[in-house]
């Protein structure tokens, strides 16, 4: 392969024709409540970690659902798992479990 000094930009499109739903399917299997998120943002605004970083569970779940899992990997383990979002969530999602499952799958085999 030749290096021309530039590379094709990765597409910024959420391409739902490409099946990237593997992680989301795993998530649903292990925590079915993830399917009932209404993206209200309560979790993101009450988040303890969100005070310090741009950690945003609503967005994370949405991106996971849309198959954009790459961007989740570096941020998912920032969660302090304090559970505040779980108490605030109007739909009763097991938010901590969701974070743990995503963390597990995104970092499978990369344990330090």
């Amino acid at each position, binding site marked *: 392969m030749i290096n021309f000094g530039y590379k094709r930009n990765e597409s910024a499109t959420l391409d739902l024709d490409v099946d990237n739903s593997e992680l989301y399917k795993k998530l649903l299997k292990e925590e079915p409540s993830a399917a009932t998120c209404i993206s209200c*943002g309560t979790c993101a*605004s009450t988040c303890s970690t969100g005070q310090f970083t741009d950690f*945003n569970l609503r967005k994370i779940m949405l991106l996971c659902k849309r198959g954009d899992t790459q961007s989740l990997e570096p941020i998912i383990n920032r969660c302090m798992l304090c559970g505040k979002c779980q108490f*605030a969530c*109007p739909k*009763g999602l097991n938010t901590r479990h969701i974070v743990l499952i995503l963390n597990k799958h995104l970092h499978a085999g990369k344990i330090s």
Partner: protein
Amino acid sequence: MKSIAIIGAGIAGIEAASRLSKQGHKVYLIEKNPEIGGHVAQWDRLFPSQEEAEIVLNDLIKNLNNRAEVLFNSEVQHCGKKDRQFEIILTGNKNLLVDVILVTTGFDTFRAQRKEEYGYGIYENVITSTDLEQMFKKHNVVCKNGNPPKRLAFVHCVGSRDEKVGNRHCSKVCCATAVKQACEIKELYPDCEVFNLYMDLRMFDRHFEDMYHEAQSKYYVNFIRGRLSEAGENKDHQVVLKTEDTLAGKPLKLTVDLLVLMTGMEACDTQKTLNTKLGLRSDTDGFLSTKDVFTQNNFSNTDGVFFAGTCTGPKTIPETLADARAAASLVNAYLMS
């Protein structure tokens, strides 16, 4: 002469009573409060036309023309089938023997204290939509300290679409009410900044979208898609809101002088006592279960017991009145057969 007991003298009860009494039936209108009119009597103006609630209610009462026997301060203690009729015992041991029971018990407003993180009953400048209507009625929309609000926010879906309080359902009217109230606030205080924290704006009915359009184009009401997660109070007793602007994808902080919680509709407590006595069933949302969702939504599963109004789920005022008229005509047909 056939007799009907209508339980609940809200607008559905009043409308059904006036229709049925006009058709020559004996109507007992049972009301637990000392006055009739239900929730509408608490309201100042109504969406989408900004008509005064009092005028609408007075029209309905005028229509009723004292033909029905209104039993104030009365609650159903006991009721049961007796031959083909129903025996009802009211508070004060008053006995009624009727051919038909029409349930118009309506709804209860969600008790905002149950969402503790929103601070109702804890912070002095957190009120509900009902409180705000009272303020409108008294022409005194002010913060606790007596000053008009310079910034005000409405929180949609308080007690609605919330599994945690057992209400998965949408209360249907709060979005429109919030937009109506937002416009009214701007009418009253043009310089007041108004925010609506919504999840989905459900402007489903006729003229609603116009109202929303007006709120945006005429009053510059701010709409933020995000649910309030928690409210706090600062030193000046302003309410500090934490939410996420889900469209911007960022947490959002907002300090307001007055916070209005759009409390939703819940199944009525009174109705629950009727259930066991009359063999009525509640759906998972707590509201009464009708015989068929499409074709028989005024019928209960018990012969001779009919439904009208919000006891079968959240409805707007026009919907409630239409439902009451439908129920009245069905009751009439039932009594004639």
